[in-house]
Structure formats: C-alpha cells, structure tokens
C-alpha cells in the first residue's frame, strides 16, 4: 500500500478556504482520542476547552487578551513565511522587546517622567525585537548561515538574558528576593481600552497591524515583491528585487511586531519584568500564521482560536486535572494537520494498494 501524489491543475478556492477548518476538526478528533486514551471523557473536555470559555463574559475578555500577542507575532511571521524565510525565533524577539522597553520603565521608575515614557517604551520594544530579528537575517544575507537554526538558538539566549536581569541587576531590592523587577509606574503602563477591563491598547495595535498588513500585501509593490520572492525566487531576481533587502526587511518587520507584543504584554498584563513572560506565544504564533493561511484576517481569527486553547487548557487543568502539556501537544498536532491539509489542496492523493497503479 502506498500513496500516490499528483499536482492538481486547478485548485478550487472553496477547498482552499475549507482546508484549515478540516484540519482543525481533524486535530480535535485526534485530541479527543488522546483524552479518551487517558481515561477521561472527551465530551467533558470539549465542554471545558471550548464551550465554557465561549459562554462566559470573563473568558471572552481573556480570549482577546491572549489572542493579542498571538496575532501581533503571527502577522509579523506571515511576512517571513510569505517570502519563504523561516523565522522561528519570534519567542526570543518577543522577550528582547520586553527587555528593551522594560529598561526604560525601570530607568524612569519613581521619577516624575511624563507621558512620553510609554510611547518611547513601545518604540524601544519594537526596536529591540527588530534588532534581535535582524541578527539571523544579517547572518543569512551576509554569510549564508541558515536562519532556522540561528533564530531558534537566539530564543534560548534571550530567555537566559531576561532570567539574568530579573534575578540579578534588575531585581526589586525591596521584593523579598523574588526574581522580579519593581512594578512599573502608571506612566509606564499600557492602559485598558475600557476602564477596569483586562483588554488594553495592545489589542488595538494588533488590529492596526492586521489592517496595515492587508493593505501592504494586497496593494503595494512590497507585498508583490514578497509573494514573488517566495513563489518564484528566480523571477524575483530577474525583476531586480534584491532578495537580501527583502530578507532584512521581513525579519525586521516580524521581529519588530514580536517586540511590540513583548513590551505590550509586560507593560500591560504583567506590569513588571520576571524570568518568564510568555507561555510560548512565539511558537504558537507559527501555528496561528499557518492556520490563518498567512492572510491577515485569517490570522486574526486563528489567533482567537488558539487563544481559546490556552484558556481552555488552563481551566481543564483546574477542573479536569488535565495537564497543561495537553494544550501544547494539541497545538503541535494542529499545525501538522494544517500543513497536511494545505498540501492536500494542491495535490491529489490516491491510496494505491499493492498491484495497483502502474
């Protein structure tokens, strides 16, 4: 028995749009099966993971909170993935953004610094993420070093840097030796959109990023250049598009957006620097980008879907004693299903039993 693949000559847009949905359903069935294997009820798990968060106003708000960094990072990654460049170090760029922006918050702590602090922190966050993202891009364009491995290795370096700062020089001296910085001043805190809600302006940034990206990709030469570089690198060269400039640009954009996500999270949700500031947003965002078909509006929906897995995972841990690792396993299998479904849309697959075929 074997598989036989043939490229499809025409791909229906309906199939293309339905592929992520089919992948999601498949991943859910697999996860349900695993939960059943663990001796738990898949129906109860589905209720806790999906239905309860969607029917509770507090959870709906939390959904936006968790979807925000995912969407920001994934939008950035979509630039890279469209150009067929593999930035898998967004988690590190996110952390670096938090470090750069957080530095200013700590510097101005306890002073009467005015309203300029927060905007400058956000700019520093973007800068930190972008510069950190440019390291693998520079190594690739200048020396031909594979960007996949370097960007991933830099994640560990960024996490260790934050760990050092939060436990060492930036630790709150009056914090009873807890490994965390002082709490940011109000001037260094990202405000909520509505009074007393947990949804802050980070969500607005994410929506702006979605709209701007939709325009850039659909209406500008740069967007066309990305598509061409990814789909037909030779044609892009003949057209005079520099692949090096494209590489640097997309890594700067994705690093900058990941950095913005990092500083927004630290100045908005967390309010201080601590050794761990992310439940793996930078890696989950890769799944978000592909589930959203690298389309800005698709990514917005996919970010909400994956935010649901984080929230559902947390309540399942409390209510059903299902470990949090289940969420990560689900995210992995979901990405695998999404990529397989994508490939199935472009290729016809036939199962050939022995003796069949040619």
């Amino acid at each position, binding site marked *: 028995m074997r598989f036989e693949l043939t490229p499809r000559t025409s791909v229906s847009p309906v199939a293309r749009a339905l592929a992520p949905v089919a992948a999601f359903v498949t991943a859910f069935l697999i996860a349900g099966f695993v939960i059943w294997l663990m001796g738990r009820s898949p129906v109860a798990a589905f209720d806790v993971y999906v239905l309860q968060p969607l029917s509770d106003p507090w959870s709906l708000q939390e959904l936006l909170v968790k979807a925000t960094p995912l969407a920001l990072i994934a939008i950035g990654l979509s630039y890279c993935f469209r150009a067929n460049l593999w930035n898998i170090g967004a988690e590190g760029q996110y952390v670096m953004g938090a470090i750069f922006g957080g530095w200013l918050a700590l510097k101005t702590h306890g002073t009467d610094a005015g309203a300029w602090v927060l905007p400058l922190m956000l700019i520093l966050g973007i800068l930190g993420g972008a510069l950190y993202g440019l390291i693998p891009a520079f190594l690739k364009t200048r020396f031909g070093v594979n960007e996949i*491995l370097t960007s991933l290795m830099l994640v560990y370096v960024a996490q260790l840097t934050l760990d050092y700062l939060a436990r060492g020089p930036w630790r709150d001296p009056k914090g009873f030796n807890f490994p965390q910085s002082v709490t940011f001043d109000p001037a260094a805190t990202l405000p909520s959109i509505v009074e007393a809600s947990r949804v802050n302006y980070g969500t607005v940034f994410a929506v702006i990023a979605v709209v701007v990206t939709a325009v850039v990709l659909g209406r500008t030469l740069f967007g066309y250049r990305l598509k061409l570089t990814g789909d037909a690198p030779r044609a892009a060269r003949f057209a005079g598009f520099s692949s090096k400039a494209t590489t640097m640009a997309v890594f700067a954009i994705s690093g900058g957006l990941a950095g913005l996500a990092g500083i927004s999270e630290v100045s908005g949700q967390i309010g201080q620097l601590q050794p761990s500031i992310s439940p793996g947003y930078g890696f989950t965002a890769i799944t978000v980008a592909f589930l959203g078909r690298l389309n800005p509006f698709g990514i917005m929906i996919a970010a909400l879907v994956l935010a649901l897995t984080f929230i559902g995972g947390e309540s399942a841990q409390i209510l059903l004693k299902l470990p949090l690792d289940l969420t990560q396993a689900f*995210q992995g299998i979901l990405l695998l299903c999404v990529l397989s479904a*994508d490939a199935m849309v472009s290729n016809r697959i036939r199962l050939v039993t022995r003796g069949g075929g040619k």
Partner: protein
Amino acid sequence: MTTFEAILLTIVTASTPLLIAALGELVTERSGVLNLGVEGMMIMGAACSFAAAVTFDSTLIGVLAGIVAGVAMAALFALAVLGFAANQVGSGLALTIFGLGLSGLIGAPFVGARRDPIAPLDIPVLSDLPIIGRLFFEQDLFVYGSIALTVLIALYLGRSRSGLTLRAIGENHGSAHGLGLPVLRVRFLAILFGGACAGLAGAYLSLVYTRFWAPGMTSGRGWIALALVVFAAWRPAWVLVGAYIFGAATVLQLHAQAAQFGVPAQALSAIPYLATIIALLLLSLRHGRAIGAPGSLGVPFVPDR
C-alpha cells in the same frame, strides 16, 4: 580518579546523545528530507524510555520503548511530508511542539522517580591503564555503540549500493525517480531511522545521563544535533568530531558554573547556543554557502507525469 579524568568521562556521556541523534538526522537529510522534529522525537524517546524502564524495572525495555517512540513520531512526520507532501520545515517544527507537549503528559507520573546507573562495560587489564584506561575501556555500551554506528553509517553511505541509492535520491529526486528508484520508500525508511536514533538518544539522556525525567529536559539538544549535521557538512566522521566539541562545551560550562568565576550562570548556560551560532558562522566563512547539502534537501517530492 582525578578531576581531569572525571571531566573527560562526563564529556563522553554528554556527547553521546548528540552524536546518536545527529547521525540519525544525517541519514534522513542525505535522503533529501529535512526533519526539524529531532527535539520532539528525542524528548519523546526520553519520556517513553524512562516511563517504561520504571514501570517494568528494566533498562532494556526502556531503551526499546525510547526507540519505538522515536520511530512512531518519525512515522507521523513521514505521513505528513511524504504521504501528503506537506512543507517539511513547518511539519518538523510541529513535530517538535507536539513532542514537547505529549512527553510532558507521558512523563508526568514519573517526575521524581530515579533509576540506578547502568554498569559500564569493564574491559579487563586495558581499563586499568592510567588516564586513557577508564576513558577508552570502561564506558557504557551506548558509547561504543555510537562510535560503531558512526563507522557503519560512513561505510553504508560511502561504500554500499543501497547507500548510493539513498544519496542519489537526496541529491536529485526527479532524476532518481526517472531511473526507477523508489524515492518515497527510501525516504520513509531514512526518516524512520532518524526517528529511531533520536529516540535512542533521548533514552540515553533520561536513563544514563540524568537518570530522572524532567519536562523539557532535552533543552535544545535536538536543535544542536541538527546544527551538527550542517557543521559536519553531512559527513558522519565530522558529526563525531562536532558532537564531542559540543559535549565538551556543555560539560566545561557546567564545571565553570560550579567553580563560580563571578560570571553569571546564565551567561555560561548560553554558551552551547552561542557556540552553535558561531560554529555555523565559521563554517560559512570558510566555505561560502552551506557545503555538502543534498540537492533536494527540504523539497517535497511530487512526481510529474
């Protein structure tokens, strides 16, 4: 035993899992498939082998379970990238995310359990030689096995007909298919072999190196193994050299932390990751573009007709 001897011995134990995992990935990549899931297959090997070894109180069953876990993960990857011609980079990454999550589920009941060390093979007389005696003649079976594996893979790829077929498929799958070579079957087996090696490397980590299970315990070793393959320019002998250099960097870093030079522990912990980047950079400086990479590496195979 002197400290120096002890350091040399720990370098061997730290290098062996890197070597085994990188050799497996080398074979997979030589067939033209890039599997970025090494970290995920390795940690599944570590979790399953430890769980099985504790449950059945047998190191042998543990090791076998680790290999089976690695192969099962690899089969999942093969289904996606060969069966459906899915993107290899993304699928490998998904496999790593999946493995890190699932291993946490499998290992959870075994957190806190410990295994006894396995007895090294003591080769009489020779192991009593000063300095080199214990280093060369009193290691565990895995260490000797990993070196034998290096030689076998080098011979297989360089000297056997089947190895030539595998390399031809990795170099240009279109031509290989035109010649009637079974592209997908060879790749399937190469991916499974890579999974078996990664699973075995994981088993070594949890059963020999640490002798306990901790979530995320591979801590990037799978990624370093991937970098080693590039660093070695896809040649087995150089994987051996590279694995030992990285093993040494890891161990010296641990000793430096214990000695407390006044350098932050985090800076020392970052050494293996920075070393990987620097190694890749130096290699590119010497050779220009990644030298020795198989021609069809990472390209999905969909035959024209």
